[in-house]
């Protein structure tokens, strides 16, 4: 299963630890983009600690006062809405929201 997981809150969803997939992508949207743009007390968000694909939505970053280059971890790829649509249709079979 190729699974894209949308994270839209700035807290670590409990379910994230349990999910298994042959290919897992975490898409940071809405308030989830704070995981990508901020360190808390100098530490990167635990949400970014997995060995999976990471994406953050550019529009949601910019709405909140960040630029695409503010992303704190290089493994997070910044995409726009068009890129997100491509991702869902081409790279993943299923999507879920946490």
């Amino acid at each position: 299963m190729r699974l894209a997981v949308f994270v839209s809150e700035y807290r670590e969803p409990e379910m994230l630890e349990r999910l298994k997939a042959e290919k897992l992508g975490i898409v940071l949207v809405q308030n989830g983009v704070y995981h990508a743009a901020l360190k808390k007390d100098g530490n990167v968000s635990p949400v970014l600690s997995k060995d999976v694909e990471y994406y953050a939505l550019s529009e949601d970053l910019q709405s909140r006062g960040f630029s695409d280059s503010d992303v704190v971890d290089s493994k997070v790829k910044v995409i726009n809405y068009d890129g997100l649509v491509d991702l869902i249709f081409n790279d993943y079979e299923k999507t879920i929201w946490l």
Partner: protein
Amino acid sequence: MAIKKIAFIVEKLPYKSETSRLALTHAIASQTVEIHLEDGDNVEPVLAFVGDGVLNCLKNQKALEVYGVSSLEAHVKNALLLDLRVLVCKEDLEGFGLTEDSIVMDAEEIGGEVTTQVVPYEEIQQDLESADHLMFF
């Protein structure tokens, strides 16, 4: 004539919910409209950002372009324009690795004269204690 001090404390993030916008709207409204709690009473609002709430004050928010809604940055500037006391918790700002440069400190471009005050939480606590009413958002 008695003054009622109301503290609006924002601890939520912007945009995912309307919560922090409501706080700003109420605080601004209580400053601009003559609200009488009882006959002769007036209101003195203070607006404080703590915890995740400090992120409402980040500069360069593009919510108008992306979502078509006014940004929280614009609301903070409006609050400053109306001489509202705006406090931002120093410890929480530093916790996110942010400085005064990253947040809205003044609204000079629209004619605001007061500036945001970045203060230790202790000072915000004093405001909470001296307020007649506390509103948490």
